[in-house]
């Protein structure tokens, strides 16, 4: 039984990882590549770690597998945010079919600040 679960989790995790690989190739701009890469791969790693936990079913190993997942989920969004912001700031173009860009003009590059929209300012479409 655990073998089956392990195998399934492994394959699921690997599938997410494959998805992330396909994503970075197929997605049309860096922001969407970033989206796919960071999330799918994290999820894949999570599944694979779950497979490890199930396979060994020892507390020490389970704890370590969980630790890996925790770390990945703690760090991935931070780096994704930083990479995305850096991409925008370094002028990497959005996909030409991108709709709204609320960030346009919001950065003051001289001062290095980002303007907000005010708390009750209902932004228009």
């Amino acid at each position: 039984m655990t073998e089956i679960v392990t195998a399934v989790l492994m394959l699921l995790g690997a599938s997410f990882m494959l998805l992330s690989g396909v994503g970075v190739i197929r997605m049309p701009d860096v922001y969407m590549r970033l989206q796919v890469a960071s999330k799918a791969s994290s999820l894949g790693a999570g599944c694979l770690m779950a497979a490890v936990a199930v396979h060994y079913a020892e507390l020490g190993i389970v704890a370590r597998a969980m630790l890996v997942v925790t770390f990945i989920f703690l760090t991935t969004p931070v780096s994704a945010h930083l990479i995305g912001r850096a991409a925008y700031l370094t002028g990497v173009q959005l996909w030409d079919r991108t709709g709204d860009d609320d960030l346009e003009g919001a950065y003051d590059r001289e001062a290095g600040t980002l303007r907000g929209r005010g708390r009750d300012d209902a932004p228009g479409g």
Partner: protein
Amino acid sequence: MSGIILPTATKVLLPLLLLFSLFLLLRGHDEPGGGFAGGLVASAAFALLATASGVPNARRVLHVDTRTLIGVGLALALASGLVGLVGGSGFLASVWLDLALPDGTPFYAGTTLLFDLGVYLVVVGSVLTIVFALEEE
């Protein structure tokens, strides 16, 4: 300008990283890890802190001058070697102190751990000296 996310996340990651580094240091004799790995993780932690909230803050958190760490680490590594020399078994020959915990489990400490600790400190001191100095450029 680091924004909010990175400094905040760093606050959570820093203790975890430091703990992991101590962990690597202490159990390196038996499983993957050791003074180098531990020291590098600790360095990475403070490098992250320096990136997130600035070198002055990282220096403040570290509390000890990085160059002092280098000196202490080097002296410690050398001293651990001298223990054997003075003890008659030769330079860098490991000397063990056999103890038992109150519950009877054997517990021992050796100069090798001291040596590894010296390595750890040198790694942290050197890497952070480099990273901080470069960040301040």
